[in-house]
């Protein structure tokens, strides 16, 4: 059997996969585990295109009887394959901030990269959570391992008895992972600025996973990059002089499909007055843009609206460009507030067709 666990790259997902592994082993034969994609891949800047090849490759190399797949950035191709097969799977709706803490502890990667990796998984998970065949698992479910294991076994149609549930409850490896279900402590080295970045990019997803509507996201300047100096953050003002060019770009983070409003907060010095700047949004191509001329020194909020389809490619990018060749002065990058205007429901395409048929009496 192949068992899919769709979840963020944190310990709650690992806990669920460990439980499935133990449960599957009672069916006889060996059990393999595949975390997909690799953490290196998640932390890099790659296209969101998970070839299903990995599944067959693992079975060829490992030759296991059963396979537990922990899908961390499950794309639409896998979603369609699972939907067509009416597959049963679990969706682990961990608090994304806990997943960041786990991932930082596991990899030692910087918080910006980890926040981005987890933020890229969140909109994908939302699509799976709404599918039939899903068993959603939340952090509170991990408080009672026996109950959690029984629910997972029942949903995945795996045989289980009281003795096995008892064994799982006292399994030291399971017990260690179980801590993921509670209050994950942030790494001590995380700064207040990093915490703001984390909360801004991920807290709305945590609320959404808990049942609330999708709220506003805040991308702090720490998620963005300076053209020609990608390694540094935007903590200092940028010089406008130097000809027409892009100043900032990033963060390459996926959003749930739908219509969005982005408020880009920028600070301008007096010398920039009368010069033209361009703010655009790209999702592998430019999808919205607006030009702006500051009248004088001050903080300005520039708005752009755009629509996004299913997450694909590199994710969303917001760029700031100097248009005037002779621009002068300084620009400070504040943050970007992203407000969902209308989110596309996962089964909207089917509903659309039904509506058309009803209206047109087809």
């Amino acid at each position: 059997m192949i068992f899919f666990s769709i979840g963020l790259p944190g310990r709650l997902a690992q806990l669920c996969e460990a439980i499935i592994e133990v449960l599957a082993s009672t069916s006889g034969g060996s059990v393999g585990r595949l975390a997909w994609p690799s953490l290196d891949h998640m932390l890099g800047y790659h296209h969101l295109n998970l070839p299903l090849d990995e599944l067959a490759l693992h079975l060829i190399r490992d030759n296991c009887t059963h396979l537990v797949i922990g899908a961390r950035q499950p794309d639409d191709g896998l979603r369609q394959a699972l939907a067509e097969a009416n597959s049963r799977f679990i969706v682990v709706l961990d608090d994304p901030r806990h997943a960041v803490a786990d991932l930082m502890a596991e990899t030692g990667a910087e918080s910006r990269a980890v926040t981005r990796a987890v933020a890229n998984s969140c909109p994908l998970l939302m699509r799976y959570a709404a599918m039939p065949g899903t068993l959603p698992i939340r952090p509170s479910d991990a408080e009672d391992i026996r109950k959690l294991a029984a629910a997972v076994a029942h949903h995945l149609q795996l045989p289980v008895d009281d003795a096995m549930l008892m064994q799982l409850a006292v399994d030291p490896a399971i017990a260690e992972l179980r801590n993921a279900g509670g209050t994950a402590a942030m790494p001590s080295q995380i700064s207040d600025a990093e915490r703001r970045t984390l909360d801004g990019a991920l807290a709305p997803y945590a609320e959404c996973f808990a049942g609330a509507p999708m709220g506003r996201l805040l991308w702090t300047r720490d998620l963005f990059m300076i053209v020609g100096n990608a390694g540094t953050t935007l903590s200092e003002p940028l010089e406008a002089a130097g000809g027409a060019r892009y100043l900032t770009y990033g963060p390459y983070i996926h959003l749930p499909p739908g219509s969005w409003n982005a408020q880009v907060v920028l600070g301008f010095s007096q010398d920039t007055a009368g010069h033209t700047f361009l703010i655009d949004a790209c999702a592998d191509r430019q999808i919205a843009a607006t030009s702006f001329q500051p009248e004088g020194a001050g903080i300005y909020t520039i708005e752009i609206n755009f629509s996004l389809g299913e997450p694909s490619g590199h994710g969303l990018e917001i760029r700031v460009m100097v248009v005037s060749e002779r621009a002068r002065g300084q620009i400070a990058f504040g943050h970007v507030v992203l407000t969902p205007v209308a989110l596309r429901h996962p089964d909207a395409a089917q509903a659309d067709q039904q509506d058309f048929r009803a209206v047109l009496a087809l």
Partner: protein
Amino acid sequence: MLEFTIGLPGPFGTWCAAVVARLAGPTAGPLPVISANTLDQISRSLIGRGTSQAVISPREPSGRLRAELSAAGRRFIVSTEDPRAVFGHLVANGLDARETVRAVASSCAAVIGCIDAPGALTLRADWEGLDPLAAAAAIASHLGLPANEAEIAPILDDLARDGIVPAGENWTTFWAELGEAERAMALGAIAPYLRAFNGEAFEPLSWAPLLFTTGEEPGQPVLGPIDITGRARCLFRGPDILVPPGAWSLWLGLSFSTEAVEHEYLVEISGCAGASSISVQPERPGQLQGRVDFIVDETADEPISIRFMSRRAAFDGILTLITATVAPRPDAPETATRG
């Protein structure tokens, strides 16, 4: 747990896969047999069936799948059988002759590279297939499946009751009843593999015009002279057949009318390493032959497709495709050889 049986889409290939499915299957029943050629197809099929245990039976295994099997040190079964028999078997079962030639020829091209691959046990229909019990025992032994002859015999009886036997119907009778053009089309594209399966030198493949389609009407075979009148366009394309990895020469035999000689043409070949193309300017009317060299690398999965195009509009002119012959280049650094 996956087992692999690679073979042509004929009776012997089907029998080998069915034997492995029963030998490797749990007592509840045989494993499912999945016909998938690429890693992606295998993954999708497994998700669709909700299983991680199956017999994968690719008819045209992709280069990457072949490479991964070897790299993983996996043992697998390769079956070969007379491609003419496979063609006869499939056409007798109602498949279109042209599509069957494409399928069998492509299968031969993909399978031939597996015969001597590490981990392969190669079984021939005209040799091991004559003793099914011994063949099944060899399969079990090679794959490490626990079964002795006393257990295998009833499995083979069950398969026979279901009509799954190593040899199909007598294809020579069918072959005799086939039309001359279809017989020539099939023989040219698939018969050279019969000798190659035996380890003999690879003879040139001959692709009949019937395997090509007119440029403007997909699916319409080239049945005779092609009128080049009109805008610059693709005049014919095909045959969309896999060729084994190696260095090859394509020889195109064409006939041009006087008016057609005035024009320049472009021959493009896809499915090979890089894109091979060559401009053609006939020097005189009548029959001419031109050569294009190309290389198929080990990981190539795309069939060879030739596109013959006019480069500018023509008011008049006729050309006729006479032959398309593909021969290995023995002088090239990558020579097409078995394995």
